[in-house]
């Protein structure tokens, strides 16, 4: 579950426009039009990027009257949480690779279990 959240965070922040949006919001909440102003892209494109950031849980938006205000979601993964999630992911892969290794070396090692 944590790995999925991490994938979404990675994906959300893999794009320079979205990173620029997050950096802007890290300074404080902004309306969609304020957010779009410094970016050289259309409003629909901004909305699309916002949707990705919202799905990842990095940004949340709230409509008050006719203005949609965006802000960063404080419940981000901390550095240590990310570290632990990355380690788990990397170990899961390593242990799967150990299975491949054992399969690949099965024929090299016909005296299985007697080498010790």
């Amino acid at each position, binding site marked *: 579950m944590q790995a999925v959240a991490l994938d979404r*965070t*990675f994906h959300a*922040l*893999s794009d320079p426009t979205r*990173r620029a949006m*997050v*950096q802007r919001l*890290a*300074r404080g909440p902004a309306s969609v039009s304020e957010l779009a102003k410094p970016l050289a892209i259309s409003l629909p494109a901004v909305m699309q990027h916002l949707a990705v950031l919202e799905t990842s849980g*990095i940004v949340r938006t709230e409509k008050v009257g006719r203005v949609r205000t965006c802000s*960063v979601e*404080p419940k*981000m993964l*901390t*550095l*240590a*949480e*990310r*570290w*632990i999630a990355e*380690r*788990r*992911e*990397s*170990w*899961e*892969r*390593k*242990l*799967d*690779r*150990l*299975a*491949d*290794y*054992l*399969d690949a*070396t*099965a024929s090299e*090692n016909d005296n*299985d*279990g*007697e*080498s*010790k």
Partner: protein
Amino acid sequence: MTTDTQTRMLHDTIVMERTYNASPARVFAAWESVEARLRWSVPFPEAGAAYDQAEFKVGGLDIMRCGHKDDMRYLAHVRYLEILPDRRIVMAERVAECGEIRAASLITIEFEPAGKATKQTVTMQVSAFDGSDMLDGYSTGWTAALDNLAKEFE
């Protein structure tokens, strides 16, 4: 960078089970041999690992660098606390990234025969360091963006 006053600790226990089509002796040997470890323990093709020191014995110390092939930024010290051939390995691991400690872990690997196969259980008790001092160590890409965010909430 030098003050540690804001570092918090995060603790977690991760248990990973696998059953391998090999005898406990072969699975144990895959952990024992540095050559074998270098073959299987690289998690993705672009990753790299290199041992500066390898001492697979009780009290022995492994010193290993790993990370991306072009950027082996992690330095791991592994001390073997207990080794029972074909049955279990217990080790203490310290991992640093660019000179800053990231985590200290107790890792227990247990091998159990399951017919002709081996059930392997890896238990990692992780203490991760979560400090604002570490955030300064990052520079590029999404990590920088995340770090700006993190600082915002300190």
